[in-house]
């Protein structure tokens, strides 16, 4: 049963990923990205990471992809890009070669390393992270004790990002240039 869910989610994820890369229209890429993110959320549920699955849907599929779509609409680049022109000679073949090499390395590491992971492995049949607490509670305890400082740093990072985005997209001057009246 779990294997069937995994295979279905994996198919959804991989089809979505190929769609993101292969779509000529950026809007279609964004929609395929949502498909991939939802597939990953299913995988999180399968591994008892329910909170992360919810965050994945709300934050990723709900906020980040919507931000992408906003910018696509704002810039008016929702027309199809031509995929057949190649500005740098040999870029595509090189990219494919690099991709194949990367896949070989990653799969080798995966196959070799999975047997040699250190740590307390769960016994067969045991649910992951199962010691009576829900995963939200466990994650919350860890985040606000062990990683409390990192959470604070995250807040600072988010603030900096918001300020930076405002500074970057603000028009200069405001009354000196011809673009000023559009603010």
């Amino acid at each position, binding site marked *: 049963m779990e294997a069937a869910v*995994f295979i279905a989610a994996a198919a959804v994820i991989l089809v979505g990923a190929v769609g*993101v*890369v292969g779509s000529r229209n950026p809007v279609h*890429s964004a929609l395929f990205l949502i498909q991939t993110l939802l597939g990953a959320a299913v*995988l999180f549920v399968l591994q008892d990471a329910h909170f992360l699955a919810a965050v994945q849907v709300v934050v990723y599929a709900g906020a980040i992809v919507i931000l*992408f779509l906003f910018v696509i609409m704002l810039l008016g680049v929702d027309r199809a890009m031509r995929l057949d022109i190649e500005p740098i000679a040999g870029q595509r073949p090189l990219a494919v070669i690099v991709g194949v090499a990367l896949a070989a390395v990653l799969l080798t590491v995966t196959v070799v390393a999975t047997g040699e992971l250190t740590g307390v492995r769960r016994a067969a049949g045991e649910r992951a992270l199962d010691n009576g607490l829900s995963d939200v509670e466990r994650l919350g305890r860890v985040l606000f004790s062990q990683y409390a400082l990192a959470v604070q740093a995250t807040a600072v990072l988010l603030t900096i990002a918001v300020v930076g985005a405002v500074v970057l997209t603000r028009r200069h001057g405001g009354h000196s240039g011809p673009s000023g009246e559009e603010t």
Partner: protein
Amino acid sequence: MEPTTGWYLALAAALFVIGAVGLLVRRNPLVMFMCVELMLNAVNVTFVALGADLNDVGGQAAVFFVLVVAAVEVVVGLALVVAVNRRRASATADDLSALRG
């Protein structure tokens, strides 16, 4: 039959490679950002799979931080794209050379 950790790692590797190839091939900076998101998601799947396998909730905590940093990266990156696009009416990654000093 239950999917083992190796299945998840293999899927994450495939997803990461697709994202990397897309990042190298595509020239639209928006699509390149989406490919970065694919790669980050592959890493997230790895974190959750290994965290479940090793019975360590730290894997999920790491995914939490990756999510936040991904959101920040998208916000700043899209602001840059908008800023560059205001000066030139095209949207290829080569035009980002306008950011040079």
